[in-house]
Protein backbone atom coordinates (compact mmCIF):
# COMPACT_ATOMS: atom_id res chain seq x y z
CA UNK A 1 0.00 0.00 0.00
CA UNK A 2 1.91 3.08 -1.19
CA UNK A 3 2.24 6.09 1.07
CA UNK A 4 3.61 9.48 0.11
CA UNK A 5 4.22 12.86 1.69
CA UNK A 6 2.33 15.56 -0.19
CA UNK A 7 3.02 18.55 2.05
CA UNK A 8 4.84 19.75 5.14
CA UNK A 9 5.41 23.16 6.68
CA UNK A 10 6.04 25.02 9.89
CA UNK A 11 3.67 27.85 10.80
CA UNK A 12 4.11 30.63 13.35
CA UNK A 13 1.02 32.52 14.47
CA UNK A 14 1.46 36.00 15.93
CA UNK A 15 -0.84 38.77 17.00
CA UNK A 16 0.57 40.68 14.07
CA UNK A 17 3.31 40.13 11.52
CA UNK A 18 4.36 42.96 9.25
CA UNK A 19 4.81 41.27 5.85
CA UNK A 20 6.51 44.39 4.49
CA UNK A 21 9.57 43.60 6.58
CA UNK A 22 10.23 40.38 4.68
CA UNK A 23 11.82 41.98 1.65
CA UNK A 24 14.44 40.09 -0.33
CA UNK A 25 16.96 42.66 0.83
CA UNK A 26 16.13 42.06 4.51
CA UNK A 27 16.26 38.29 4.10
CA UNK A 28 19.58 38.37 2.26
CA UNK A 29 21.20 40.87 4.63
CA UNK A 30 20.35 38.78 7.65
CA UNK A 31 21.55 35.57 6.07
CA UNK A 32 18.14 33.93 5.99
CA UNK A 33 18.40 33.36 2.27
CA UNK A 34 21.44 33.35 0.02
CA UNK A 35 21.12 35.83 -2.83
CA UNK A 36 21.94 33.11 -5.35
CA UNK A 37 19.20 30.89 -3.93
CA UNK A 38 16.34 33.29 -4.70
CA UNK A 39 13.89 31.99 -7.28
CA UNK A 40 11.29 33.69 -9.40
CA UNK A 41 7.76 34.11 -8.12
CA UNK A 42 8.44 36.33 -5.10
CA UNK A 43 5.66 38.73 -4.10
CA UNK A 44 6.01 41.65 -1.71
CA UNK A 45 3.09 43.80 -0.59
CA UNK A 46 2.12 45.31 2.74
CA UNK A 47 -0.41 42.50 3.20
CA UNK A 48 1.59 39.53 1.96
CA UNK A 49 5.15 38.41 1.36
CA UNK A 50 5.98 35.29 -0.60
CA UNK A 51 9.58 34.31 -1.12
CA UNK A 52 10.74 31.33 -3.13
CA UNK A 53 14.28 30.05 -2.69
CA UNK A 54 16.12 26.85 -3.46
CA UNK A 55 15.90 25.75 0.16
CA UNK A 56 12.44 26.88 1.25
CA UNK A 57 9.29 28.77 0.41
CA UNK A 58 8.26 31.49 2.84
CA UNK A 59 4.78 32.97 3.06
CA UNK A 60 3.87 35.77 5.48
CA UNK A 61 0.48 37.37 6.05
CA UNK A 62 -0.34 39.54 9.08
CA UNK A 63 -1.59 36.71 11.30
CA UNK A 64 0.81 33.96 10.21
CA UNK A 65 4.22 33.03 8.88
CA UNK A 66 4.71 29.75 7.05
CA UNK A 67 7.89 28.07 5.85
CA UNK A 68 7.97 25.03 3.57
CA UNK A 69 11.37 23.34 3.41
CA UNK A 70 12.30 22.17 -0.09
CA UNK A 71 15.59 20.47 0.72
CA UNK A 72 16.25 16.72 1.02
CA UNK A 73 14.59 15.20 4.06
CA UNK A 74 17.84 14.87 6.02
CA UNK A 75 18.33 18.66 5.80
CA UNK A 76 14.75 19.70 6.61
CA UNK A 77 15.20 19.99 10.38
CA UNK A 78 18.23 22.25 10.01
CA UNK A 79 16.47 24.54 7.53
CA UNK A 80 13.38 24.77 9.73
CA UNK A 81 15.36 25.46 12.90
CA UNK A 82 17.86 27.91 11.43
CA UNK A 83 15.59 29.90 9.09
CA UNK A 84 12.50 30.20 11.27
CA UNK A 85 14.71 30.52 14.34
CA UNK A 86 16.64 33.37 12.77
CA UNK A 87 13.46 35.20 11.82
CA UNK A 88 11.93 35.07 15.30
CA UNK A 89 15.23 36.17 16.85
CA UNK A 90 15.38 39.12 14.46
CA UNK A 91 11.82 40.11 15.42
CA UNK A 92 11.83 39.61 19.20
CA UNK A 93 9.05 42.10 19.86
CA UNK A 94 6.54 40.32 17.66
CA UNK A 95 3.81 38.91 19.94
CA UNK A 96 4.08 35.24 19.01
CA UNK A 97 1.06 33.11 19.87
CA UNK A 98 1.70 29.57 18.70
CA UNK A 99 3.85 27.38 16.50
CA UNK A 100 2.54 24.57 14.34
CA UNK A 101 4.02 21.81 12.20
CA UNK A 102 1.94 20.27 9.47
CA UNK A 103 2.50 17.00 7.63
CA UNK A 104 0.19 15.65 4.93
CA UNK A 105 0.45 12.00 3.97
CA UNK A 106 -1.59 10.12 1.39
CA UNK A 107 -2.23 6.40 1.56
CA UNK A 108 -3.30 4.55 -1.58
CA UNK A 109 -5.05 1.18 -1.32
CA UNK A 110 -3.34 -1.61 -3.21
CA UNK A 111 -6.65 -3.07 -4.18
CA UNK A 112 -10.29 -2.38 -3.45
CA UNK A 113 -11.61 1.11 -2.96
CA UNK A 114 -10.60 3.87 -0.61
CA UNK A 115 -13.99 3.38 1.09
CA UNK A 116 -13.12 -0.26 1.74
CA UNK A 117 -9.90 0.92 3.34
CA UNK A 118 -11.65 3.62 5.37
CA UNK A 119 -14.31 1.17 6.51
CA UNK A 120 -11.68 -1.31 7.61
CA UNK A 121 -10.05 1.40 9.69
CA UNK A 122 -12.91 3.46 11.09
CA UNK A 123 -16.37 2.08 10.36
CA UNK A 124 -18.43 1.03 13.36
CA UNK A 125 -21.53 -0.79 12.09
CA UNK A 126 -23.23 -0.62 15.46
CA UNK A 127 -22.80 3.13 15.77
CA UNK A 128 -26.11 4.98 15.73
CA UNK A 129 -24.41 7.69 13.68
CA UNK A 130 -23.42 5.13 11.03
CA UNK A 131 -26.97 3.86 10.97
CA UNK A 132 -28.38 7.37 10.75
CA UNK A 133 -26.03 8.45 7.96
CA UNK A 134 -26.65 5.36 5.86
CA UNK A 135 -24.28 3.98 3.25
CA UNK A 136 -25.47 5.37 -0.07
CA UNK A 137 -22.20 6.30 -1.81
CA UNK A 138 -20.65 6.68 1.63
CA UNK A 139 -17.43 8.56 2.31
CA UNK A 140 -15.66 8.05 5.60
CA UNK A 141 -12.84 9.58 7.61
CA UNK A 142 -11.73 10.24 11.18
CA UNK A 143 -10.43 12.84 13.62
CA UNK A 144 -7.97 12.20 16.43
CA UNK A 145 -6.16 14.48 18.82
CA UNK A 146 -3.77 13.88 21.68
CA UNK A 147 -1.05 15.56 23.71
CA UNK A 148 2.49 14.92 22.53
CA UNK A 149 5.96 16.56 22.66
CA UNK A 150 4.58 19.24 24.99
CA UNK A 151 1.92 20.26 22.49
CA UNK A 152 -1.23 18.97 20.85
CA UNK A 153 -1.40 16.71 17.81
CA UNK A 154 -4.50 16.88 15.64
CA UNK A 155 -5.14 14.43 12.84
CA UNK A 156 -7.82 14.65 10.17
CA UNK A 157 -8.24 11.67 7.87
CA UNK A 158 -10.42 12.05 4.81
CA UNK A 159 -10.83 10.40 1.42
CA UNK A 160 -9.34 12.54 -1.34
CA UNK A 161 -9.29 12.57 -5.11
CA UNK A 162 -6.97 14.21 -7.57
CA UNK A 163 -8.42 14.63 -11.02
CA UNK A 164 -10.73 11.71 -10.43
CA UNK A 165 -14.46 11.63 -9.89
CA UNK A 166 -14.12 9.22 -7.01
CA UNK A 167 -11.68 9.47 -4.13
CA UNK A 168 -8.81 7.04 -4.57
CA UNK A 169 -6.71 7.76 -1.48
CA UNK A 170 -6.90 8.57 2.21
CA UNK A 171 -5.23 11.80 3.26
CA UNK A 172 -3.76 12.09 6.75
CA UNK A 173 -3.46 15.77 7.72
CA UNK A 174 -1.34 16.15 10.86
CA UNK A 175 -1.04 19.36 12.86
CA UNK A 176 1.31 19.54 15.84
CA UNK A 177 0.56 22.74 17.73
CA UNK A 178 2.55 24.31 20.53
CA UNK A 179 0.87 27.27 22.22
CA UNK A 180 3.12 29.99 23.59
CA UNK A 181 2.62 31.92 26.78
CA UNK A 182 2.64 35.69 26.52
CA UNK A 183 6.09 36.67 27.68
CA UNK A 184 8.03 39.90 27.38
CA UNK A 185 11.35 38.50 28.55
CA UNK A 186 12.32 36.48 25.50
CA UNK A 187 10.75 33.29 26.79
CA UNK A 188 8.65 32.92 23.68
CA UNK A 189 11.74 33.00 21.49
CA UNK A 190 13.37 30.27 23.55
CA UNK A 191 10.13 28.26 23.45
CA UNK A 192 10.00 28.54 19.66
CA UNK A 193 13.61 27.35 19.42
CA UNK A 194 12.73 24.44 21.68
CA UNK A 195 9.66 23.45 19.69
CA UNK A 196 11.37 23.84 16.31
CA UNK A 197 13.71 21.07 17.40
CA UNK A 198 10.69 18.72 17.38
CA UNK A 199 10.43 18.80 13.56
CA UNK A 200 12.01 15.39 12.88
CA UNK A 201 10.28 13.72 15.81
CA UNK A 202 6.90 15.09 14.77
CA UNK A 203 7.42 14.03 11.17
CA UNK A 204 8.45 10.52 12.21
CA UNK A 205 5.45 10.27 14.50
CA UNK A 206 3.10 11.32 11.70
CA UNK A 207 4.65 8.75 9.37
CA UNK A 208 4.40 6.04 12.02
CA UNK A 209 0.69 6.71 12.44
CA UNK A 210 -0.01 6.91 8.71
CA UNK A 211 1.89 3.67 8.23
CA UNK A 212 -0.47 2.01 10.68
CA UNK A 213 -3.09 2.25 7.94
CA UNK A 214 -0.69 0.58 5.55
CA UNK A 215 0.17 -2.22 7.90
CA UNK A 216 -3.32 -3.12 9.03
CA UNK A 217 -3.11 -6.34 7.10
CA UNK A 218 -6.78 -6.01 6.35
CA UNK A 219 -7.73 -7.93 3.25
CA UNK A 220 -9.64 -5.65 0.94
Amino acid at each position, binding site marked *: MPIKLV*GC*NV*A*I*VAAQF*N*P*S*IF*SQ*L*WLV*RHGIVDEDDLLEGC*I*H*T*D*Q*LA*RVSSKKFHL*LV*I*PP*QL*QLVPTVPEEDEAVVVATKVGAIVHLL*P*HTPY*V*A*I*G*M*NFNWQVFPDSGTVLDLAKSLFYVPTSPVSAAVGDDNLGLGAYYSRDIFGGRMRLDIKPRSEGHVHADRLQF*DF*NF*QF*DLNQDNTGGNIRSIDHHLANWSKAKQESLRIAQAAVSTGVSI
Partner: protein
Amino acid sequence: MVTQTRAIPEEAVDKRLSQSVMPRPNGMRNHDILAMTALAFLTQSCGELASAGEFLAQVQDEGISRPMLDIQEFDAMIARPVTRAGLSLMPMELSSADAHVIETALSNKSAKPTFATSRLPEMK
Protein backbone atom coordinates in the same frame (compact mmCIF):
# COMPACT_ATOMS: atom_id res chain seq x y z
CA MET B 1 -10.99 31.88 19.77
CA VAL B 2 -8.97 28.72 19.12
CA THR B 3 -5.59 29.37 17.53
CA GLN B 4 -5.08 27.57 14.24
CA THR B 5 -1.57 26.73 13.08
CA ARG B 6 -2.51 24.78 9.98
CA ALA B 7 -1.13 25.71 6.56
CA ILE B 8 -2.24 29.06 5.16
CA PRO B 9 -5.06 28.31 2.69
CA GLU B 10 -4.84 29.62 -0.86
CA GLU B 11 -7.98 31.69 -0.29
CA ALA B 12 -6.16 33.67 2.40
CA VAL B 13 -3.35 34.43 -0.03
CA ASP B 14 -5.83 35.58 -2.68
CA LYS B 15 -7.60 37.76 -0.12
CA ARG B 16 -4.38 39.44 1.01
CA LEU B 17 -3.29 40.09 -2.54
CA SER B 18 -6.66 41.63 -3.30
CA GLN B 19 -6.44 43.83 -0.23
CA SER B 20 -2.96 44.97 -1.29
CA VAL B 21 -4.25 46.57 -4.45
CA MET B 22 -7.62 47.79 -3.22
CA PRO B 23 -8.02 51.55 -3.50
CA ARG B 24 -8.01 53.57 -0.30
CA PRO B 25 -11.26 55.36 0.52
CA ASN B 26 -9.83 58.59 -0.87
CA GLY B 27 -8.81 56.91 -4.09
CA MET B 28 -5.13 56.44 -3.24
CA ARG B 29 -3.55 53.05 -3.39
CA ASN B 30 -0.91 51.86 -0.95
CA HIS B 31 1.72 52.11 -3.61
CA ASP B 32 0.71 55.64 -4.52
CA ILE B 33 1.26 56.68 -0.93
CA LEU B 34 4.48 54.73 -0.80
CA ALA B 35 5.89 56.34 -3.93
CA MET B 36 4.88 59.85 -2.92
CA THR B 37 6.19 59.59 0.60
CA ALA B 38 9.41 57.90 -0.52
CA LEU B 39 10.08 60.63 -3.03
CA ALA B 40 9.30 63.41 -0.59
CA PHE B 41 11.36 61.78 2.10
CA LEU B 42 14.35 61.36 -0.16
CA THR B 43 14.30 64.91 -1.42
CA GLN B 44 13.99 66.40 2.03
CA SER B 45 15.66 64.02 4.42
CA CYS B 46 18.24 62.06 2.49
CA GLY B 47 21.51 62.38 4.34
CA GLU B 48 19.95 62.82 7.76
CA LEU B 49 20.02 59.10 8.47
CA ALA B 50 23.25 57.87 9.96
CA SER B 51 23.32 54.46 8.35
CA ALA B 52 21.26 51.42 7.65
CA GLY B 53 18.76 50.52 10.30
CA GLU B 54 15.15 50.63 11.24
CA PHE B 55 13.70 54.07 11.61
CA LEU B 56 10.41 55.69 12.25
CA ALA B 57 9.76 58.70 10.06
CA GLN B 58 7.17 61.22 11.03
CA VAL B 59 5.51 63.99 9.12
CA GLN B 60 4.92 67.26 10.94
CA ASP B 61 1.58 68.62 9.88
CA GLU B 62 0.52 71.87 11.50
CA GLY B 63 2.43 70.98 14.61
CA ILE B 64 0.99 67.50 14.83
CA SER B 65 3.46 64.65 14.48
CA ARG B 66 2.11 61.70 12.57
CA PRO B 67 3.91 58.38 12.17
CA MET B 68 4.34 57.91 8.47
CA LEU B 69 6.94 55.42 7.44
CA ASP B 70 8.75 52.54 8.99
CA ILE B 71 11.97 52.49 7.06
CA GLN B 72 13.79 49.22 6.77
CA GLU B 73 17.40 48.90 5.79
CA PHE B 74 17.68 52.44 4.59
CA ASP B 75 21.04 53.60 3.45
CA ALA B 76 22.37 56.09 0.98
CA MET B 77 23.39 53.47 -1.53
CA ILE B 78 19.89 52.12 -1.71
CA ALA B 79 18.32 55.54 -1.53
CA ARG B 80 19.86 57.03 -4.64
CA PRO B 81 17.62 55.37 -7.20
CA VAL B 82 14.17 56.41 -6.10
CA THR B 83 12.59 53.24 -7.39
CA ARG B 84 14.89 51.10 -5.25
CA ALA B 85 14.26 53.34 -2.28
CA GLY B 86 10.56 52.85 -2.79
CA LEU B 87 11.08 49.17 -2.24
CA SER B 88 12.89 49.88 0.98
CA LEU B 89 10.26 52.12 2.47
CA MET B 90 6.93 50.94 3.60
CA PRO B 91 3.86 52.74 4.80
CA MET B 92 2.59 52.08 8.27
CA GLU B 93 -1.09 51.44 8.77
CA LEU B 94 -2.48 54.68 7.49
CA SER B 95 -5.97 55.85 8.23
CA SER B 96 -7.75 57.59 5.41
CA ALA B 97 -7.32 60.82 7.37
CA ASP B 98 -3.56 60.33 7.55
CA ALA B 99 -3.41 59.45 3.89
CA HIS B 100 -5.33 62.60 3.09
CA VAL B 101 -2.95 64.73 5.17
CA ILE B 102 0.05 63.28 3.37
CA GLU B 103 -1.57 63.62 -0.03
CA THR B 104 -2.47 67.24 0.63
CA ALA B 105 0.89 68.11 2.12
CA LEU B 106 2.87 66.56 -0.68
CA SER B 107 0.82 68.16 -3.40
CA ASN B 108 1.00 71.63 -1.86
CA LYS B 109 4.24 73.15 -3.13
CA SER B 110 4.07 76.13 -0.81
CA ALA B 111 3.73 74.08 2.34
CA LYS B 112 5.88 71.01 2.18
CA PRO B 113 5.66 68.82 5.25
CA THR B 114 8.62 68.57 7.55
CA PHE B 115 10.03 65.12 8.10
CA ALA B 116 11.66 63.90 11.27
CA THR B 117 13.26 60.54 11.82
CA SER B 118 14.09 58.50 14.87
CA ARG B 119 15.14 54.95 15.43
CA LEU B 120 12.40 52.55 16.34
CA PRO B 121 12.32 51.96 20.11
CA GLU B 122 13.42 48.32 19.90
CA MET B 123 16.53 49.36 17.95
CA LYS B 124 17.83 51.70 20.63
